[in-house]
């Protein structure tokens, strides 16, 4: 669906993105993560053809953006990190302009526009001038504009900046629905909590390079060769401590009264066997949890490596 190969983008003599390669299959929500200045926005702008790369190829839905621009952009919805609206138009008129730009059939145009106005909860603002909208509303209107042509590929640059908690939830739900509809989404952000709940794949950028890229669990597995577990018990915990200490897969065992945390090097079957062993030994286990690494964990781990 999206294929980026050896992408390099220079601003004057500063290399903003260097030798970037990654793929995003259809139906993924791909989080492009990185600190400010990592090259996320540059990458997205090059992907939609707003920046001419120094070299490299970008293929969207099978079309090379450099050679088949018109076909490639027909499949893209792009939402930049700010909201450049036409402030002298109403919400409906603004969307109508882009319905025309994306050649939506005139017969269904009004219905489609209304559907997206409702989707982003701007129904009451339909005939309000866009200049009179709050920042969050403008962001939502931009999202509606982005989704209006029903693009196969949706590129969102810092979409949640300026959104209140309710709007963030709305954004999250809309993106999940888009994924369910088979759309491919790339979302860039440096706020990891924004992405944590719905990204299926991630790419972590640092100083113009792609440090790692792939499905979240694969990236996690690559980064963390060992997995942390936590156990909570009722009653005597000494026996449990003995059993855990005796297991060869357990390391870095920590105990806080009747709670244990440890690193386990075995796979899921071995973890299940360990739990069975504890229960069989009459230990009253009330919690046996694998601590799933968050995007923050992954990012911090990679950041530490990069710095090192």
């Amino acid at each position, binding site marked *: 669906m999206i294929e980026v190969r*050896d992408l*390099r983008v*220079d*601003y*004057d*003599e*500063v*290399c*903003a993105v*260097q030798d970037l390669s990654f793929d995003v299959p259809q139906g993924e929500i791909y989080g492009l993560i990185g*600190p*400010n*200045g*990592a*090259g996320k*926005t*540059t990458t997205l702008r090059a992907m*939609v*053809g*707003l*920046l*001419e790369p*120094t*070299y490299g190829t970008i293929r969207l839905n099978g079309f090379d953006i450099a050679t088949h621009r*018109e076909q490639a*952009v*027909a499949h*893209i919805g*792009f939402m*930049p990190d*700010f909201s*450049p*609206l*036409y402030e*002298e*138009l109403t919400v409906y*008129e603004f969307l*109508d*302009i*882009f319905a*025309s*730009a*994306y*050649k939506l059939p*005139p017969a269904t145009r009004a219905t489609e526009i209304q559907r997206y106005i409702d989707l982003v909860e701007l129904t009451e603002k339909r005939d309000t001038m866009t200049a009179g909208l709050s920042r969050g509303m403008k962001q939502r209107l931009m999202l509606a*504009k982005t989704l209006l042509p029903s693009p196969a590929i949706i590129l969102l640059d810092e979409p949640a900046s300026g959104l209140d908690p309710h709007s963030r939830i709305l954004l999250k739900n809309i993106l999940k629905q888009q994924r369910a509809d088979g759309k491919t989404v790339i979302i860039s952000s440096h706020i990891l909590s924004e992405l944590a709940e719905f990204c299926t794949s991630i790419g972590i950028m640092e*100083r*113009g390079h792609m440090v790692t890229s792939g499905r979240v669990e694969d990236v996690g597995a690559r980064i963390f060769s060992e997995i942390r577990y936590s156990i909570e018990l009722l009653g005597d915990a000494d026996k449990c401590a003995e059993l855990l200490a005796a297991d060869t897969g357990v390391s870095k065992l920590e105990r806080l009264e009747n709670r244990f945390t440890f690193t386990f090097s075995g796979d899921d079957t071995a973890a299940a066997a360990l739990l069975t062993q504890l229960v069989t030994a009459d230990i009253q286990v009330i919690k046996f949890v694998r601590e799933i690494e968050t995007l923050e964990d992954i990012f911090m781990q990679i950041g530490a490596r990069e710095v090192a």
Partner: protein
Amino acid sequence: MSNSLFIDNPILLKHIRARLRKAQLVPFIVVVALLSALFCWMGFAPLNGGSSGYASESTRTTAFSILFGLQCLLLFVLGACQVAGSVATAREGGQLDFHRISPQRPLAIAVGYLLGAPIRELVLFACTLPFMLPFIIMGNPFWLGFGLPVLFLAMLPAAFFWYCFALLLGVMLPKPRNVAVLVAIVIGGAHLLYTIPFMQHFTIIATMQSTISFSYSYHTASMDNDLLRNIMSFFFTIPIPYVILGVIHQLILGAFCLYAAKRKLTNELAYPFSRPVALLFFTVFAALLLGVIINPTMSRYSDSYSYDYSGMALFCLYGLLVIGLILLAICTPARSEIIKGIRHVRKLGRHIIPVWDDRAPNTIFLISITALTALFCAIGIAIIDFLLNRENSISQQILPINVIYATVRHSLKFEQMALGLLVVIGATLFFGAALQYCQLKFRKQGATLFGMLLFLLWILPILIAFVVSIVTNSSSNPGAYILAISPLSSITELLIDATDYLHPAIPVLAIAIPWLSGLFFFIMSMHEARKLTLQPESAPPAAAPAGKP
């Protein structure tokens, strides 16, 4: 195709909605209608001293001219300002990027701005039209019957040219906020300078004057030469109806502006012209310029045509020099662009950027522009010299009318024009080479340092010569030597002053300085470009600071 260009064009739609809201439109209509009514009343007021109890013929013509001036103001100046301002604002605000990445073709975007941005001005223009009816119905001024259709037909291509020009400035200039003001100044300036050959083909004033004169001749039955004189212009001495020649100029140059704007609408960072198109533009522009300036004008003092040979030579040399310099400035890449080009070709396994690529150093382009400048200037001065020497024999062959030439023979000599030509070539070479060298050597400061260099070599000598001429006040003006340093003044100096009276050192100085400095910078810029090409790929520079790419 036509559907997306005109009917369902989103940018046209946007402007229609934004600029034709009742609350904003109605006050403007009221103001324009009141002004138009006032001018209309001026032409037909019963107390205006005319012999029939109504306004006199001249008052009526004046009233009509003012009303026509209002129409021109709305259509050309305000309309073009809106085109430039609208596209510049959308570019600065980021809305234009949305259109760039939509399936809209760049031509559709351009058409949207050309027709949409001035939509309110077009409506206001339409509102003035009913006030022309009394003039038409009454048949006054007398020339209106013939002139009005011609005038209105001539306005369309003129508007096309100015709108395309405004669109180009809107997508090109780095600081878009002032672009509308600049467009107004350029259009106003062009209309003020409408008597200058070539410039007159872009203004409606000259067309109006020609139409009035023709109609006057027609009505007063003073036909023959007068009739042709007023309706005809000359292109390489071939008589062509004035309006048609103007339309040809406007459509051709408007199309080039549209092409350049289209390129910029596709890609913000693209150069307005590719190098081959820049050379084509230069060729076409040179042909139009030479065709128009080699043009007999009617003597004010006798019933004869005469040639202003010095004026023709000056227009030829300066006109071609200026357009060559503009194209060099547009098509000379910055160091960072050349580096990008080198990286790109290296990635493809090559070592040298193709010379016609936008990112190649300007060496071959500079040579081409210099050669074309030399060629067209040489053609120009050869024709001028031909006319100068054989004016009597040529007159009967090329002009279809009875022409009596001025008896005063001009003192302009071929040697003077040839010296001027050498200065033009040197100046073009210097400009292109020095610009590329400064860009390559001094990176971001290159443009500033080049500006400083131009000031020191081209502007400062003129200022110093001016001061010296005032201070010394002697017959042997030392300022003449200083003027020779700058090509801007030395060309005039060589052409206007008789060579016999110039000190031999002055032509030498005038030619040697641009040529030597031009060759120096040419060699140095080639050296810098070569260094850059041979330089191995270094480690990537540090990434941009946080918050910036």
